[in-house]
């Protein structure tokens, strides 16, 4: 047994050394225009933007569905920040991005796609995000443990691919729009796809939506309530916004969406700005996924958000 352990430890030490070099490169050498670097810009925005802000927290439906300059026009005293990233990072990471930076006077609008309430969507793309911002791992808890151990090999894969890219590409290499760091405007909205047609073969209709007995949804709602309570204690106002979907998606899943909305009204401890039935647009307003909108869609959605926010903020002022 001793011989086996000694041999195994020697072999493992070599692998550990290789792993250390690869992960060192992965977490320390970055490509400037990497789309994942958007998190750095968003965190900087959150840290450096002064005064009272309107912060949108969410998945990729937010950068692809909000036109922040319109919000700025409607609320000249508040600075909009679109902190939305991607559903595949999981709701704890998406909230964690803004958590420390919410302060008194801020308005936080949480906008998650329906699927975020059906199961833990965190996937291996989180590793790519962690390359830019390793602190995202701090947002995870024991419920993400299975994801981590089931997908850790992907982290090794990504670190090897990263090392290969470093060897063969300049660090200022370009990425394909709109999935590049410079596809975002100064507020954090993606605008590089404005004017582009839907790429061929993309489905704009939600395929599956299964809430089951809403156990997982309740879990997420619980997390949202906890964060919202903390932010409210700091003096911020928190709202929830249902995502916009295509008419086709609503026709298929509208019943489930409305049942989920009922649960939200029962269990969410902060105001909801809209209803699923109001957040429906023609399919031509969507770009490359059931939640990524073209400019027209994003503007329509933003207009409704502004209207709802004005109503809520006015009423809270009156109170």
């Amino acid at each position, binding site marked *: 047994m001793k*011989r086996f352990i000694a041999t195994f430890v020697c072999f493992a030490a070599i692998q550990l050394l290789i792993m250390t070099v690869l992960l060192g490169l992965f977490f320390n050498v970055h490509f400037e225009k990497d789309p994942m670097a958007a998190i750095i810009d968003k965190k900087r925005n959150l840290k450096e933007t002064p005064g009272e802000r309107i912060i949108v927290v969410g998945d990729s439906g937010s950068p692809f569905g909000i036109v922040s300059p319109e919000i700025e026009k409607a609320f000249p005293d508040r600075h909009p920040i679109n902190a939305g990233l991607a559903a595949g990072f999981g709701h704890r990471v998406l909230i964690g991005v803004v958590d420390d930076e919410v302060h008194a006077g801020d308005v936080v609008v949480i906008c998650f796609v329906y699927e975020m309430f059906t199961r833990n969507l965190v996937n291996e793309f989180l590793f790519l995000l962690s390359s830019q911002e390793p602190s995202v791992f701090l947002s995870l808890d024991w419920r993400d443990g299975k994801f981590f151990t089931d997908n850790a090999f992907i982290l090794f894969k990504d670190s*090897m691919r990263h090392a290969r890219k470093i060897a063969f590409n300049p660090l200022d290499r370009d990425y394909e729009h709109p999935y590049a760091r410079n596809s975002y405007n100064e507020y954090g909205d993606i605008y590089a796809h404005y004017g582009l047609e839907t790429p061929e073969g993309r489905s704009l209709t939600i395929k599956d939506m299964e809430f089951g007995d809403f156990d997982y949804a309740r879990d997420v709602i619980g997390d949202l309530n906890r964060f919202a309570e903390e932010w409210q204690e700091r003096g911020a106002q928190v709202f929830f916004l249902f995502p916009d979907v295509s008419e086709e998606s609503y026709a298929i899943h509208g019943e489930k969406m409305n049942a989920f909305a009922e649960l939200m009204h029962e269990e969410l401890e902060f105001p909801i700005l809209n209803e699923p039935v109001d957040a429906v647009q023609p399919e031509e307003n969507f770009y490359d996924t059931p939640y990524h909108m073209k400019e027209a869609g994003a503007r329509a959605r933003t207009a409704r958000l502004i209207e709802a926010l004005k109503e809520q903020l006015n009423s809270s002022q009156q109170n």
Partner: protein
Amino acid sequence: MVFTSLTFILFLTLVFSLYWLLRRRSPQNFLILVASYVFYGWWDWRFLSLIVISSVIDFTSGIMIDKSEKQGVRRAWLTVSILANLGMLGFFKYFNFFASSLQTAAGSAGVHLGDMTLDIVLPVGISFYTFQTMSYTIDIYRRQMKSERDPIAFLAFVSFFPQLVAGPIERASQLLPQFMADRKFSYPLAAAGCREILWGFFKKMVIADNMGLVVQSIYPRYDDYSSPWLWLATTAFAFQIYCDFSAYSHIAKGVSRLLGFELMRNFAYPYFSQDIAEFWRRWHISLSTWFRDYVFIPLGGSRGPMRVVIINTIIVFSVSGLWHGAAWNYIIWGFLNGLAFLPMYIWPKKNKKKVRADDIPGGPGLFPKPRVLLNMILMYVGMQVAWVFFASPTLSASLDILKRMFTVFSADNPALHPDSWSALKALLFIGGLVIFEWVQRAHENPLTLDKIYRPLRWAIYTVMLWSCFYFLPRPDSPFIYFQF
């Protein structure tokens, strides 16, 4: 819990450490039992009840058969065991297939039965452990072994996690005695186990999963592809299923060796076979021998008139097809394999030596004789055609794909083709694997490199290990055979 995940590595490290700290057989068996239930319950703990039910029934049946001298009682308990196992398997795996087939048959006769299918989830590995436990009671009934009286050892035998969900389907007479024997750690056995695990990881993560990408990019839209692309996809599938399944067996064997157990060999370079009989002696050996011992021989085996032997063979292979999947394309796949035996029965070669799995395929030389090479190529191509039925979602899709493979040489849409790098990579992987396995075919595990200087050997292991990560497709795919 999937073998090729950090979850499993951590799990195995924990089990391995505790296991050898315990030192005594009984607590070690208990640890294996707990670990196996955790391993299985990781997917869905509710299905653990099926394993427990199956184990309890077979444990009881085994004792009752063993202690009774009355043939009627013995037969009754055997029937209980077989009905319980086949009942579970039949309900969870085949109910919807038979219900929809009945519906279709009735519909074609003008009788409308309505939807009779149920929303049933197939428990992982049910086909494997039910067959394993059935062989236990049958062997006791045949007085080929004694019943096991230690319930922990028996439960651990049924649920032994390295081979629980995708085999090899072990015989109780081979595996159970190992649970009753004291285990001593053996360096050569454990080192060989690690090599088996590494080879299994490489086959699954580098070859099978990347072949799967090629298959997935072509098969679901086969209508858009012409013959060369469909041949490429079918070749990729042939190696995907081989590497996927044999990888599981390698890892199972390797993990078992780390715990001091020896499992049976399940694959012995099947694509170097020269005829169908040899192929089935080298492919999924544990299942082939199970069907031989518990179905083919009781039906009469190869004794009796040729007509009966042919019918028996076709029945056995068709049932084997059904074992793989509850769909007509699997049955046809099995039927075709049975049919392929026909020429061997009709024109038997005199003085032909029966090849065993342990024989070196193609003979001991580095280069095969031209006739041997031709036989191997013909055998492989024939098997590849049969794999179309296995790879396709439906019988009609299989027939369409076969038709296109032999008749459609253009009219495909180049825009849909997988990129040339994927195709080239697939061919390079296949070529590399075939050459490596051919050169190393004298060894049960081709990764037996004892004669190589240790630093170089470790360098090879290191490259293989990191290749697993580098070529791992995202998202990673579970083992194909889990669905059976």
